[in-house]
């Protein structure tokens, strides 16, 4: 919705576009409270935002400049409403979403800011939610967003995709932002709930828009779509009876077969390029998990070596931690603990509850109850929502 409105108002009026969306949401809350939620809430919101946009254009016709390419069409009643209606049609909106994603990934703003912009503008993340995803302070994110929006405003129109030479460079950033969005939904830091599948759905939606557009349908996009759909297929098993369930104990029959098939198809499509991206490797890992009929059928040797590759492509402490866990599965808990100890910048995991939980798990497995207990206790202290707290509580009880 912000994308369509920005196309109409121009990038320099991004704040106005956001205000209109905000207005539409407030209006929805007001009206729905009394009349109930309409049958198609999305369409209702869209229509409300559209009418609000037309109002704004009528009243501030000459107070500002809008998108230059629409020029006079917005200034006259002859065309105002029909043109806005057309820009709100499904096809145009998908196009605008794509152009908006590219606009956010402007090389003149820093990469961190690009990711923050995508999350904020495309997916409606608040500064505090972005701060949690990016592991930094809310104030820093607010400053980053304000500065980035000022830079975007220097160009008045959305990024033109046709014939642009910048697509490849900007696409990498879009991929990363969507990846973060998906991760936040999958094992996010939200204080109320560990799992927000609507974020995963949003990330998949945006990624599949990329995968269906000829300019952005490249192997990396397919790989990203593959890894998201394969992970999402396991979502129904991740929370069982309101409790987080670890991968190895999940009821595999609850996994979404249709999504797994879709993921495997994306992965097949992704195997065409000459560049092995981190998403390829991650998707390959996800396929190993989803195609193992039982937990004990998992091919840990394959997974551990895939994590080796991933760690070369993306040497972060979280990847290193996952690699250590795969090594523990393959070679036993001692080797896993050695690998954890060898993580170069593991200080950055100090606030990550699953780091201590992993240590606890491996200590438990080799029978060091005290060390296991203190690991789970640290994890429990750091837990970010009730599901995590209850889960770690149950692990403490097991020591």
């Amino acid at each position, binding site marked *: 919705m912000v994308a369509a409105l920005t196309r109409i108002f121009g990038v320099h009026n991004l704040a106005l576009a956001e205000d209109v969306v905000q207005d539409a949401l407030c209006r929805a809350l007001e009206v729905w409270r009394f009349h109930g939620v309409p049958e198609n809430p999305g369409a209702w919101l869209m229509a409300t935002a559209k009418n609000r946009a037309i109002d704004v254009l009528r009243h501030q016709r000459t107070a500002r400049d809008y998108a230059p390419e629409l*020029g*006079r*069409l917005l*200034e*006259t*009643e*002859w*065309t105002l409403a*029909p*043109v806005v209606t*057309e820009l709100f049609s499904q096809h145009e909106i998908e196009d605008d979403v794509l152009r908006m994603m590219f606009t956010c990934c402007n090389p003149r703003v820093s990469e961190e800011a690009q990711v923050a912009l995508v999350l904020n503008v495309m997916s409606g993340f608040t500064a505090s939610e972005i701060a949690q995803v990016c592991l930094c302070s809310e104030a820093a994110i607010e400053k980053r967003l304000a500065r980035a929006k000022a830079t975007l405003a220097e160009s008045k129109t959305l990024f033109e995709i046709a014939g642009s030479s910048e697509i490849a460079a900007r696409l990498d950033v879009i991929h990363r932002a969507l990846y973060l969005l998906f991760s936040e939904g999958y094992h996010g830091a939200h204080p109320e709930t560990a799992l927000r599948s609507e974020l995963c759905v949003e990330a998949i939606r945006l990624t599949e828009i990329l995968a269906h557009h000829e300019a952005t349908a490249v192997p990396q996009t397919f790989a990203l779509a593959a890894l998201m759909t394969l992970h999402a297929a396991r979502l129904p098993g991740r929370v069982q009876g309101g409790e987080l369930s670890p991968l190895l104990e999940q009821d595999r029959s609850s996994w979404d077969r249709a999504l797994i098939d879709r993921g495997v198809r994306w992965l097949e499509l992704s195997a065409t390029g000459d560049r092995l991206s981190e998403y390829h490797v991650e998707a390959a890992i996800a396929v190993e998990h989803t195609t193992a009929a039982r937990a004990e059928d998992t091919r840990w040797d394959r997974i551990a070596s895939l994590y080796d590759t991933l760690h070369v492509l993306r040497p972060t402490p979280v990847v290193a931690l996952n690699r250590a866990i795969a090594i523990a599965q393959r070679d036993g808990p001692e080797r896993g603990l050695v690998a954890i100890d060898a993580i170069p910048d593991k200080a950055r995991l100090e606030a990550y509850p699953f780091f201590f939980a992993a240590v606890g798990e491996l200590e438990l497995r080799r029978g060091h109850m005290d060390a296991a207990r203190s690991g789970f206790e640290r994890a429990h202290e750091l837990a970010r929502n009730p599901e995590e707290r209850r889960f770690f509580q149950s692990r403490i009880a097991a020591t």
Partner: protein
Amino acid sequence: MSQFLYLFRGGNVEGPPEQMQQHMQKWVGWMKQLSETGNLKGGEPLEKGGKVVTQKNVTDGPFAEAKDVVGGYILVEAKDLPHAVEISRGCPILAVGGSVEVRPVSKM
């Protein structure tokens, strides 16, 4: 370049909504074209009713027959009168029995 006022008369499309919709689409298409070529300088459609004011009184109006009522106007920039007439030939109102009055803006 000179400016010309186009006055649109008549050509009211009555019928099922799809037909009205189709006609509207044609108008939007024509306007877009004029906007892209830079010929369109402004203008608005007009409501049917209104008032006619003279020194002596104010009456409901205009009283002209439906086909003579001005339904809207636009301001167009063109080389000369023949060019302005040429541009006006694309107007969808002509296909439904309406007319375009093309008047050069007087330079006083």
